[in-house]
């Protein structure tokens, strides 16, 4: 089974040379730590950065330089700053090749719910609806089940949707899955996790064809 760093590490393997990538808050942010040295990717932060760098050293933090998670950051050489309308022009115009974000629920058909729980305080969707409606590739990074043990991979979402039919791939603590029109296709198992365990943790239709390899991370 993977921890959140393991999930991030596995997602980093999906990155391709030359891609621009938007990482959501939480586990997705950790993906930045595991980019292979031999590929070039640039991180887009929707508040207006392309070429986001590391967190700053103490004393070098700048209130005028934050990422979309409101964390202080730095810029890499060749970085660019821009306004919010331009930022979402990049996103909506499909210039960002990959979006990685968390989810509360994903459906068999790629619907995603990650912004609202009825009866609870709603904080808002931020940029998530624009990102999921636009990105060519969306990878969801999440735990396979909720804290109370319920599956987050469902026949259909029970929570209000963030986007419809948009998730292409899911990486959880248990598995890598592809989202097709037919159901969740199991691609890889996390180290030490059996297909039966994944089946038990998946409420939506799981498609298992042949031998499922263990992740190589």
């Amino acid at each position, binding site marked *: 089974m993977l921890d959140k760093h393991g999930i991030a590490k596995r997602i980093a393997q999906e990155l391709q040379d030359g891609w621009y990538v938007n990482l959501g808050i939480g586990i997705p942010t950790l993906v930045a730590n595991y980019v292979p040295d031999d590929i070039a990717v640039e991180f887009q932060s929707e508040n207006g950065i392309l070429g986001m760098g590391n*967190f700053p050293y103490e004393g070098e933090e700048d209130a005028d330089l934050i990422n979309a998670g409101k964390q*202080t950051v730095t810029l890499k050489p060749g970085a660019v700053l821009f*306004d*919010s*309308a331009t930022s979402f022009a990049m996103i909506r115009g499909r210039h960002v090749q990959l979006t990685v974000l968390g989810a509360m629920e994903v459906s068999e058909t790629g619907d995603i719910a990650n912004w*609202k729980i009825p009866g609870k305080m709603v904080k808002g969707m931020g940029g998530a*609806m624009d990102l999921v*409606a636009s990105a060519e590739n969306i990878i969801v990074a999440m735990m396979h089940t909720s804290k109370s043990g319920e599956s987050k991979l469902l026949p259909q979402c029970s929570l209000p949707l963030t986007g419809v039919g948009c998730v292409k791939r899911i990486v959880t603590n248990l598995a890598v899955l592809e989202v097709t029109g037919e159901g969740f296709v199991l691609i890889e198992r996390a180290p030490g996790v059996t297909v039966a365990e994944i089946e038990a943790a998946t409420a939506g239709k799981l498609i298992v064809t042949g031998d499922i390899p263990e992740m190589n991370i």
Partner: protein
Amino acid sequence: MDRIADEHRKTMNKIVNNAQEAIADIHDGMTLMLGGFGLCGIPENAIAALVKSGVKELTCISNNAGVDDFGLGLLLQQKQIKKMISSYVGENAEFERQLLNGELEVDLIPQGSLAERCRAGGAGIPAFYTPAGYGTEVGEGKEVRVFDGKPHILETALKADFAIVKAWKGDRLGNLIYKGTARNFNPPMAMAGRVTIAEVEHLVEPGELDPNYIHTPGIFVQRIFEGKDYEKRIEQRTLRTR
């Protein structure tokens, strides 16, 4: 065109003395746009002046709602806001209390649609189609149209009685330059105010800003003043170990 730049000619001057003067004609019930992302790039001086003015029943269009004791949170504390139009309003307990008590209305808008709707308001585009929000609550009641096989929803432009933005440098013609990620929503909102007020850290002479690198052309700005005592609070001080 031999006489345009004569030296004895009168030139534009949009400078007002301070925040108080800039916001003097903002009345109860008006709609304001306020730039900023989180607490980054917010018009601190104008917000303080609005608190002091006591103006109320405001509709505030701003990506976020500040924190309890800073940014728009200060206006919330004084119950000066009737409605917030935002994309994300977490980190604010007073906000939550007012919302759950029905004292506050909230209209949540996807961040990209919010930015584009402001730009559209400023650019004379009354409406446009976007895929964001289709099939969700945001799309409910909105026209759906398919382009290239993909469903989109119709979103309309946003305008405001006053847009209030914060820039790094500006001149008396209203030309503005922002710094770092403090740019964010400020440029699209600057375009969409019937009156746009800019507060700047540094007011400079015309010609000091390179014409090739101005972020907000002065034509979008009606009033400008040099702010003071910027706190520029950091929400998440994240550091790297040496």
